[in-house]
């Protein structure tokens, strides 16, 4: 699962991941999308740009 907040500054990121992925999949420039989502600091930009969610793979295994 992707982190709820930026590790460095604590800004709420969780509500932005879906929009980011959708727009980048549609072909938009990631830098532009990050700007539009209000992510000015490079700590937040890095978190959104580089976090990977592999919970679907994990879901295949029993707890």
């Amino acid at each position: 699962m992707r982190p709820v907040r930026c590790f460095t500054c604590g800004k709420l990121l969780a509500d932005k991941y879906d929009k980011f992925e959708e727009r980048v999949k549609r072909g938009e420039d990631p830098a532009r999308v990050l700007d539009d989502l209000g992510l000015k600091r490079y700590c937040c930009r890095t978190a959104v740009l580089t976090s990977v969610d592999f919970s679907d793979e994990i879901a295949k295994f029993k707890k």
Partner: protein
Amino acid sequence: MEIEIRKLDGNEMEFVLSGANPAFANSIRRAALRDVPIMAIDEVEFKVNDSAMYDEIIAHRLAMIPLTTPAKGYQLPSECGCREGRCEKCSVDLELKAEGPGMVYSESLKPSDDEVRPVSGSIPIVKLENGQRLELVAIARLGFGKDHAKWQPGIVAYKYMPVLEFDPKLCNACGDCVKACPKGILEVVEKRVRVKDLTQCTMCKACVESCSSEAVRVSGDPSKFIFRVESTGTLPPDQIILRAIESLREKFEEFPKLVKKL
């Protein structure tokens, strides 16, 4: 001491504090981050968790969801009469009942007091497959940023007011500094260099280095502070600063009483 608000827009605020010393400004900054109590989920009672994520992972995610903090009405758990921290004066219950398939979002959290609710309803909590259920009660309490980052109301940062001096005797208005400035805040007007927006200056001194006549001097004014406050949405940014100032005042009001008793 003077204060001038330059911007107040939603969760962001920018103000200039002048006539203070660096220790004063820093203590305001620290108090805003660490000593202003806000609401956050502090305990989770799981009834059912069929998801792929362990209880504690989900509990941690819930804790990090920023919640709105009511202006008043709640006590700190340490100051509340009930010793368990579960009464209605010091805690708020947020119930969540969900069934897959699909992602569970923060909007599914139903609070017992509507004034304490997630700042955003579109925060993904955990994904549930077909037939998987999640049932829990999350208990939110007041707390301080110094104890856990979930209780940090936002970020507060300041810098000195930049001071840029262009020596008219040495400056030949060549414009090298204008081109060198990464923020683009300089311009040449009538054979002199003018600063467009002083608050945008980061004091990087690119202008100083680019000047072949050594006509530029960059420094910071240690009595003037440009503050930027960004709230997570839990409290309005002006409230964060006001409560920080109040918290400091309370400490310095208590101190002399304790000194007398020494």
